[in-house]
């Protein structure tokens, strides 16, 4: 201890200053590191919970539609449109699912054109037509087609 204090003052003071800085840093680090850090890895474990709660879903999913509209869902499941989701055409449905008074989107012919407009980039197995040439073009698709069961006629 005595030999330590006998170090030349330059060295001693700088050494003490350095120790002080390291101690301050360690204390700061102890206080400022978030609690859940390193719970699962080098990140805040709470972030997982926060991400899981970040948004309220806008799309409800087919099961939610099935609760009230099971007849339509079952009709859909029989034919070619069975892989479609209700909300793909009708838009986000969580608001409507929570409160049926909120109306869901009305579908018009541009919805059908979205998938069925002929485009050379689309795969060949996909049914597509050149809408402007199709029966005068611009007329309602639902005059001849039933979206929920595309093999039937209205």
């Amino acid at each position, binding site marked *: 201890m005595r030999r330590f204090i006998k170090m030349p003052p330059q060295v001693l003071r700088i050494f003490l200053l350095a120790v002080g800085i390291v101690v301050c840093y360690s204390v700061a680090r*102890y*206080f*400022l590191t*978030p*609690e859940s*850090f390193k719970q*699962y*890895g*080098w*990140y*805040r474990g*709470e*972030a*997982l*919970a*926060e*991400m*899981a*709660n*970040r*948004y*309220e*879903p*806008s*799309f409800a*999913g*087919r099961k939610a539609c099935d609760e009230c509209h099971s007849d339509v869902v079952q009709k859909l499941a029989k034919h070619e*449109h069975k*892989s*479609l*989701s209700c*909300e*793909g055409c009708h838009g*986000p449905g969580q608001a409507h699912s929570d409160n049926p008074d909120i109306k869901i989107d009305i579908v018009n012919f541009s919805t059908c054109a*979205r*998938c069925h*407009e002929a*485009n*050379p*980039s*689309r*795969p060949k197995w*996909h049914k597509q037509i050149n809408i402007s040439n199709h029966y005068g073009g611009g007329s309602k698709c639902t005059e001849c087609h039933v979206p929920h069961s595309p093999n039937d006629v209205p």
Partner: protein
Amino acid sequence: MKNHLSRRNVLGKLGAVFAGVMAAPVARTAKAAVQKVFVSTTAPKGYDPTKHKWRMALDISKCIGCGLCAEACKKENHVPEGSFFRTWIERYIITKPKPGSGEARGETIVDCPNGGMHGFPEPTVAKEDILHSFFVPKLCNLCEHSPCVQVCPVGATFDAPDGAVLIDPKYCIGCGFCVQACPYGCRFLNPVTKTAEKCTLCYHRITRGLKPACVEVCPTESRVFGDLKNPVADDPLQKFYENNRVQSLKPHLGTEPRVFYAGMDKEVR
């Protein structure tokens, strides 16, 4: 020379130990008070991230380029207006080679109007000149050795135990290193929150038993989603892996993407 066991020395040492013991709960309370600024909302209700492994796969031959997935993602995740996309669709058009040129293929034209969000217009190339054309949906590739996670300086982006690669918006400092490091261009800096953002596999949906919004609205089952640790009956993801030979994007970089593409072409980057 004082004896080491002198009364003063022993009392002094005991006093120091006592002070330390008394100070510990004070320090802990102080730490908790400081921590309050970091404490967040509730824990997920019964969801254990270590018990799931979410994966997405893409069947290119089924994608019709309707753009419903990109649009749904923008709505579901409140992605800002402008050219910011958590998922997008690219259209590849490979033209026929010039007759007599001795080439197998012509040129490759790639486009992505508005992320493909509103579908795709007619291609500029005439139908007769097209050799191949297809759509490639892109998203976070869920890399095994994510370069984005590797370069984050503070630990704000991470591989969650359940397979998603997430960003902690409360911790991100907005340096943009992860955006530069991602080889697939799937990250962007959100101009509103000024933090990095990317596809989270709709983490707020999958932790509640829903599917990601893009998978939900895809009309042709081109996007395949599932839980490797809890496969359901007729699990579409398992069937995908069994029935398809697959490719991943930029394999030479060693990132080991876990999003596999079936029906891909060599021109896709």
